[in-house]
C-alpha cells in the first residue's frame, strides 16, 4: 500500500465546533499515515457525475486509519457547506493524501515552535500542537490566534487546557472585530506590535520555527512582518488557504 491514490473515506461521526465549523471524523481504509501539517484533497461527486475537489488540513495526530478534518463554512462555497452542514455518519467521499512535504512539523531538534493562525488556518497548526502535547517534554511553543469574534473560536477548551497545564506553551488570542465581554487581551489585526509580544526571546535561545497559516492576505502580512522582526526567511513556513480577496 502506501502510494498516493484516491481512497474512500467514510464519515464515522461529526462534532460541531461552533456555528460555522464542524469536525468530521473519518475512517479511511488503507490510510498510510501522515505528518502534522499535511493535508488531503477531498473529492465529492454528485449523482450527475459533477465533481469538486478542495484541500483540507488534517487536524488529528496519526491514529491508524482514522483522521479528523475541521472545516469552516465559506458562504456560498461549493464544498465547505456540504462538509459543515450536510455530511452525516455513513456518508462517503474520496480523499487523496497525505499531501505536503514542507509545511510539516515532526518535532525535529529543539527549536521552539511559533504558530500564527488566522481563522481556519488554525487547523494544521492544531495538529502540530496536538503532536507536541503527546510528548512529555515538548519544545517551547507559542500560538498567536487571530479570529474575528468569539463565535469563530475553534478548539477553545483544548487550547485553554494546554495553556493551563504547561507553562512552556503560551496562548495568545486577538479579536479583529468583536472581543468577548470584559476582554483585556489583544484586539485588532496581527501586526509588528502583536508579533513582537510573541517573538521576543532570551538571548542565546534558538530561533523558533514559525508556521503561519490562514487567508492569503493574513499570511503575506505576518510572514513579511516576521522577516522584518529578524526571522530568517527559511524559518518561516507558510500555507495560504485563499482567497486573495480580490479578483486579480
Amino acid at each position, binding site marked *: 500500500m502506501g502510494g498516493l491514490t484516491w481512497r474512500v473515506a467514510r464519515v464515522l461521526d461529526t462534532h460541531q465546533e461552533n456555528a460555522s465549523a464542524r469536525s468530521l471524523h473519518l475512517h479511511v481504509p488503507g490510510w498510510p499515515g501522515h505528518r502534522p501539517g499535511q493535508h488531503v484533497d477531498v473529492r465529492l*461527486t454528485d449523482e450527475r457525475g459533477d465533481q469538486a*475537489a478542495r484541500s483540507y488540513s488534517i487536524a488529528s495526530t496519526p491514529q491508524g486509519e482514522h483522521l479528523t478534518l475541521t472545516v469552516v463554512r465559506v458562504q456560498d462555497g461549493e464544498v465547505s457547506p456540504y462538509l459543515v452542514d450536510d*455530511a452525516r455518519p455513513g*456518508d*462517503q467521499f474520496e480523499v487523496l493524501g497525505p499531501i505536503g512535504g514542507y509545511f510539516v512539523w515532526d518535532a525535529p531538534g529543539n527549536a521552539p515552535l511559533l504558530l500564527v493562525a488566522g481563522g481556519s488556518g488554525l487547523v494544521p497548526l492544531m495538529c502540530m500542537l496536538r503532536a507536541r502535547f503527546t510528548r512529555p517534554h515538548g519544545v517551547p511553543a507559542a500560538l498567536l490566534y487571530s479570529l474575528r469574534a468569539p463565535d469563530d473560536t475553534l478548539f477553545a477548551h483544548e487550547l485553554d487546557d494546554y495553556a493551563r497545564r504547561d507553562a512552556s506553551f503560551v496562548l495568545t488570542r486577538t479579536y479583529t472585530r468583536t472581543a468577548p465581554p470584559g476582554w483585556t487581551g489583544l484586539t485588532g489585526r496581527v501586526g509588528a506590535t502583536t508579533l513582537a509580544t510573541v517573538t521576543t526571546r532570551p538571548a542565546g535561545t534558538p530561533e523558533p520555527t514559525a508556521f503561519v497559516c490562514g487567508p*492569503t492576505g493574513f499570511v503575506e502580512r505576518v510572514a513579511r512582518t516576521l522577516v522584518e522582526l529578524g526571522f530568517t526567511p*527559511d524559518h518561516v513556513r507558510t500555507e495560504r488557504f485563499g482567497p486573495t480577496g480580490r*479578483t486579480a
Partner: protein
Amino acid sequence: MTDKPLVTRGFRGRLRDTDPARLPPGQYVTSDFPVLSAGPTPTSPLARWDFSVYDDDTLLTRWTWAEFLTLPAEDVTTDIHCVTHWSKYDTRWRGVRLDTLFDLAGRRAPFVLATCDGGYTTNLTLEDVLGAKAWVVYQYDGHPIEPEHGGPARLLVPHLYFWKSAKWVRALKLIQQDHPGFWEQRGYHNHADPWKEERYWED
C-alpha cells in the same frame, strides 16, 4: 484512481458548463488568483535585480532590470492550472520567451533549473520550455506583477501545473542531468502535466 467515481450522498455540485477540451481533469475554474508559496514573499529592489543564464555553474549572460526590459517581449494570453485544483482562464502576461533567452545566451542543454529569490528552484526539460511554451514575464494584466504573485518577474510555463511557473525567478541554469526542484523534492510530481493529472509522487 478509482474506476467509477463514488457518489457522495447529499452533495450537489455547481455543474458549471465546462469544456473538457479546455479544463484539465480534477480542476475547477475560478476568477480569484490564489497564492501558493512555502514562505515569506521576498522583496527584490529593481535596482539590485538582475537575470542570469548559466551553463551549469558558468555564467553565460546577465541582464539588469533595465536591460531585460529591452529584450524582445510579447503578450501572452493563456489558461493556468494550479495543483490545488483551480484553473484560471485567459490570464494576460507580458515577457520574454525562453527561446529568446537561450538564443542570446548561445547555449542549450537537455534540462533547465530555474532559481529564485527565497531559494526556490524548479526543474524543467528543455523540450518543455522551447517552442514558445515558456516565458519570463514581468507584467500581469497590463501591470507590474505583484510580489505575492511572483513579481518583479516570474516564469510562465502554462502547459504545466503552475508551481513550475516559479515566482521571483532570477536565473536559469542549463544542466545535463535532471535535478528535482524545491516542490519536486517535497512530494510534487517531477513533470506536472495537468492533462495527465501529474500532481504528486506516485500519483
